[in-house]
């Protein structure tokens, strides 16, 4: 592959007011390669993608496509040039069918006044079937998040593109769906489509991509062939410093007394007869496929969803939890997986976010004590190392990792006995991830119960002392530190029986 690159970017800068999102970066995409673009959040990856997709205009610099200099004034122009972008965040019309969403661009360009639904459904199904057998007459709102992500990708496939950019396409996918996506991406590569692949997950990058370019703080750092570097090299380039240890040390001694015990918990539709025991000092992981009922179990324990049966005990004392405020009073808090949707109040100040969980702590005689609220926020943000201009700044001004720290600070403000964290590091950069993992370990060491739900297998394996796997609303099994492994978790999660690992995975 010594041809001219299909896409070349030279000296591109982009400033938002005084903030330089990109300064003088270059990037080269060869014909038919899968090229990973890495960097922490705020490194400028998304800005570059948005420039290439015509959403943003560069302040400076040149873009060459197929050897010709081009300008991309609008998303429509990007489509005409054959550049497709799959956004990290799902942007589908929830009330339209899958087919209508997939062919939105084509419908938009259609001259005829009436729709030909018959043809639309047939064509759309063909495209969809290449990814997953999702019926195209379904309304998008009725699909799970991971299926919506697949529709988003199918939509990009219909555009006859030369360059396809995927921005964290696997963030919401399960392992098996991700695998299917990889084989599709490889298929696209064989058809001569060049792919820019943005991801935080090193394992994916190293199994899928040919080359990797790293950005840091809006600047170009390096481009390497994947064969020439190790994941550690890439992480070091992203962070700009040595991360000595990705995960904190695990619990050395045996865990202490039982903090939280759940027996026979069931709800009306998602799961039944769930037992769970959490001991002091340990971090308990909950794994499983998306939709298996992990979040629902955690939310039901905390009274955010109604339970039909089951007992919850904290410190051996049975609790009556009918709603979330009961749970908070009992010392049980839940960190939502959907940070922006239900974790934080984006347009409100940091201090106001942190006090939301228990206003009585900062209230005297029915009035808010701003001083106490500020003190609490100062202490917690300092303890968690939130990088911000001040506790009066709106949460929307923070990076994803710091927003998540604020969400965690909110949980810690009530001195919880047990903290249930749903995807605590989803979509945040490596540096913040390491800090959050350390924090969870510290909490556990101090005797706070920590339960982590995660779809990232390396996180479950690296962080947790014990992992419970949920499959279709039931506990499929439990793995202790020695038995932990990607394969073992996947077997339990997907229900594949394998005699050699069954001994290791003592089914609960």
């Amino acid at each position, binding site marked *: 592959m010594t041809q001219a690159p299909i896409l070349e970017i030279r000296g591109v800068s982009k400033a938002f007011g005084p903030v330089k999102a990109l300064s003088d970066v270059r990037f080269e995409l060869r014909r038919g390669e899968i090229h990973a673009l890495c960097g922490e959040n705020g490194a400028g990856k998304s800005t570059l993608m948005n420039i290439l997709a015509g959403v943003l205009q560069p302040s400076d610099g040149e873009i060459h496509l197929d050897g010709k200099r081009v300008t991309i004034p609008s998303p429509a122009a990007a489509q005409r040039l054959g550049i497709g972008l799959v956004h990290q965040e799902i942007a589908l019309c929830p009330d339209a069918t899958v087919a209508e969403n997939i062919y939105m661009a084509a419908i938009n360009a259609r001259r005829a006044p009436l729709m030909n639904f018959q043809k639309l459904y047939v064509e759309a199904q063909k495209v969809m079937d290449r990814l997953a057998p999702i019926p195209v007459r379904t309304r998008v709102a009725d699909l799970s998040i991971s299926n919506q992500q697949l529709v988003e990708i199918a939509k990009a496939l219909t555009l006859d593109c030369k360059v396809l950019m995927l921005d964290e396409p696997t963030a919401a996918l399960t392992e098996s769906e991700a695998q299917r996506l990889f084989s599709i991406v490889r298929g696209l590569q064989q058809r001569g489509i060049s792919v820019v692949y943005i991801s935080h997950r090193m394992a994916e990058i190293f199994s899928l991509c040919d080359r990797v370019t790293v950005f840091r703080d809006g600047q170009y750092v390096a481009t390497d062939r994947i064969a020439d570097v190790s994941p550690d090299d890439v992480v070091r380039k992203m962070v700009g410093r040595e991360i000595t240890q990705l995960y904190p040390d695990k619990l050395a001694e045996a865990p202490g007394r039982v903090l939280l015990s759940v027996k026979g918990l069931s709800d009306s539709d998602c799961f039944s007869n769930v037992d769970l025991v959490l001991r002091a000092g340990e971090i308990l992981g909950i794994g499983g496929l998306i939709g298996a009922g992990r979040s629902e179990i955690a939310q039901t324990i905390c009274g955010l969803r109604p339970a039909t049966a089951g007992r919850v005990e904290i410190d051996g004392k049975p609790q009556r939890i009918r709603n979330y405020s009961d749970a908070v009073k009992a010392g049980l808090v839940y960190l939502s997986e959907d940070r922006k949707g239900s974790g934080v109040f984006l347009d409100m100040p940091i201090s106001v976010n942190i006090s*939301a969980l228990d206003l009585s702590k900062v209230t005297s005689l029915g009035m808010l004590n701003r001083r106490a609220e500020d003190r609490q926020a100062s202490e917690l943000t300092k303890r968690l190392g939130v990088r911000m201009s001040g506790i009066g700044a709106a949460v929307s001004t923070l990076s994803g990792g710091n927003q998540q720290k604020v969400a965690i600070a909110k949980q810690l403000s009530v001195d919880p006995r047990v903290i249930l964290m749903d995807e605590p590091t989803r979509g945040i950069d490596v540096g913040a991830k390491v800090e959050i993992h350390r924090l969870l370990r510290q909490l556990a060491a101090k005797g706070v119960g920590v339960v982590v739900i995660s779809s990232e297998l390396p996180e479950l394996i690296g962080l947790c002392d014990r992992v419970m796997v949920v499959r279709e609303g039931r506990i499929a099994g439990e793995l202790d530190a020695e038995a932990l492994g990607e394969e073992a978790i996947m077997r339990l999660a997907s229900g594949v029986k394998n005699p050699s690992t069954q001994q290791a995975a003592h089914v609960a």
Partner: protein
Amino acid sequence: MSPREQTPMQAELNAGGARRIDFTRLASMREAGLIVIILALCVAMSFASPHFLTWGNLRAMMMSFSIEGIVVVGMTILLIVGGIDLSVGSVVCFSMVISGALFLAGLDPWTASLVGIAASALIGAIMGFFVTVVGLNHFITSLAAMVIVRGLCLIITKGTPLSLFSLPPSFKAIGQGSFHNIPYVILIFLVVVAVFDFLLRRATAFRKVFYTGSNQKAAQFSGIKTNQVKFWVTVLCSALAGFAGVIYMARFGAATPTFGAGMELNIIAAAVIGGASLNGGSGTIFGAILGMALLSVVTSSLILLDVSVYWQEMIKGCILLAAVSIDHFLHRKKS
């Protein structure tokens, strides 16, 4: 003192400073802007018309928006929680009509007024039920209530105004009397505004209104019973409208079944000009009252300048559009 010891204190000082700037920056910018515009208009008008800056005219202006201002208070809080109430004009009238009819039936006017306010609150409770339990949105629910309550007013009065000249002078004084040349109406309005502005900024219960309006899901995930918050704010908005209705009755000594039609638009416009967002989560009472004052100054100016009444409505609409557009533009520039 080592630097380590200084840090927490400094952090707190810095943080406190940043909060004062950030938390109220947008709101105070907007409020300061409105004050400047209102003052500029007043100065310009004082040159254009000698009658403008007289106590009589200022008093008339204040009177004209004082009672509506009480309704604006409720509407602003409802907008912050993410709701809206199109029925306030009808509810103002309903309160007048109920109190008036009960007075004519022999009840003493004070008890009749309390019943009128309670009946208005009941309308709010019914709307709150449909919003929180049935799950309809505020817009449609209050649109239906607007028509239904107007219908009730017509039924009760059989379509003709109730004449309430027989109201005792002690009651009429609320609407017509003054204390040292300041009408009671204005005093009542100022007290209501001061109390609710303070509560909205400082009371824990009202902080929950902001949480719910800013992100309902996140509020639920913080243990806030958002349906309860929405219900009680809806009731409060209607109760304040009922309170305003009683004052109108004392002022006019009559209860007209068509009174207050279209009032809701003026009130929503004032709140929005004052910075309340239709998406919920932001707004201040002080701002909304300034919005009301701006609309009132404009109306008064147009009258003094002999602008045809046909033009007045259109000009007020344009001001609303301009205010919202400028705000939208400023917000977009920021993000």
